[in-house]
């Protein structure tokens, strides 16, 4: 097993958002600003890393018949910890992400990695896998939210880029999420077909 390969696959080749189409719900809901996108990406990466570590080290003692409930309990534990940490240390981000922090529990990326990777591999590859997937997801969220924030609010990370009356408000409204994600997926497909 090639560790470098396990790390890079999550970033481009098997990018959770652009290639596996997992985690669509936060990708559409919280990407209204780069700040939110980055915050969500980091939170998901943290939970993913912790849950992959625990699932991988407990994989021999979790009975296969109840593995999904067991994974969910592990994930929910770390989501609760993350939720409380964000409430305490980043109250502004906590308020703007709102319900989508507890919803990390049902994020398909985390359960997907637990089921398809951590429960079948040793500790080190699972850590590398979690980091790769987490960073890949974070990068994807930042790309989507950058497109939406620049076009919809005229700002990037809160910095004013475009004059006040230029931005098309629709891009930071829900339809803008679908339009931005759809167009980016289309571009990714075209780009990947050429290199493949």
């Amino acid at each position, binding site marked *: 097993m090639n560790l470098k390969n396990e790390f890079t696959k999550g970033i481009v080749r098997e990018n959770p958002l652009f290639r596996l189409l997992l985690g669509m719900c936060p990708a559409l809901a919280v990407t209204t600003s780069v700040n939110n996108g980055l915050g969500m990406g980091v939170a998901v990466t943290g939970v993913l890393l912790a849950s992959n570590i625990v699932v991988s080290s407990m994989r021999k003692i979790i009975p296969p018949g109840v593995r999904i409930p067991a994974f969910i309990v592990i994930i929910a534990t770390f989501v609760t910890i993350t939720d409380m940490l964000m409430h305490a240390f980043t109250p502004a981000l906590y308020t703007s992400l709102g319900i989508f922090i507890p919803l990390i529990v049902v994020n398909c990326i985390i359960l997907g990695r637990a089921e398809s990777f951590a429960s079948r591999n040793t500790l080190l590859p699972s850590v590398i896998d979690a980091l790769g997937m987490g960073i890949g997801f974070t990068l994807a969220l930042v790309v989507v939210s950058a497109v939406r924030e620049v076009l919809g609010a005229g700002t990037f990370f809160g910095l004013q880029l475009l004059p006040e*009356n230029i931005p*098309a*408000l*629709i891009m930071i409204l829900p339809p803008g999420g679908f*339009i931005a994600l759809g167009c980016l997926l*289309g571009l990714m497909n075209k780009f990947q077909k050429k290199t493949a």
Partner: protein
Amino acid sequence: MIPQKDLIVVTSAPHLHSPDNVPTAMRDVLIALTPALLAALYFFRLPALLVILVCVISAYAAEIVCLKIMKRESPTRESSAIITGLLLAFCLPPSLPLWMAVLGTLFAIVVAKHLFGGLGQNIFNPALIGRAFLLASFPVAMTNWTNPLDGLTTASPLGIMKEAGGEVLPPLGEIFLGSVSGSIGETSALALLLGGAYLLYRRQIDWRIPGTFLGTVFLLTAVIGGIKGEGLWYPVYHLCAGGLLLGAFFMATDWVTSPVTKLGRILFGIGCGLLVVLIRTKGGYPEGVAYSILLMNVVTPLLDRYTKARVFGRVKSHA
């Protein structure tokens, strides 16, 4: 070797031939839009002309570029894009900044039409998507109406009706002729009726959609007017004000995005009418023609599926 054109084409019945094709249909629509175009130029003058020109030219350019990039052939030699541009301009306010008009047109042609597969494949009416995009993006610029007579900024007739207070409603005669504030091509009920009558006469559109659409709005608003004690002017006013006639004759009847079955068309028109009255009387916007048609576009495939004609001679299976 026999030249291709001398071969007899053998096909199964019916052996019908119609001189109508996509280019003649597009030409008829353009002719039908002419009265409304003249009325728009007469009432709104230069600003309207500029918006119309910008929309039509950018629609044409976007269509050509899209056809080239996506390697598609257009059976209409791009005239459908001109109509999309014209229809979009008709539902924009004359005071709209021109670059916004370009942006809306590009969105209509590139996203609503070509990303969905090009002419004949789009789910939604491209012109209405362009309008919805602009209304969601620039709500202030898109609801800045000017009165064509004195050039002053004023609420649209339906806006006045909704707010119920302050400004006085323009009289019905002005609404019918078109000398009121509103989108470029929607104010003159007379011109739109002429165009609609031409399309019906040429059989380019089926009476079922505009008939049931307008009929539903008339009946419902007559009932509402009756409850309010307003009398008969109220439903007539609802028919002539806003974008209802433009929508009913030129947008709801779009061949691509409306049902093909007769019953489907009747249901489509009734649905549009219900939604328009609902939005106008209960919704947050004073006008709801664009959204009601877009919403009914969504259910068009379902309407077609559930109103499919029974094949002649077949008996319903009793399973």
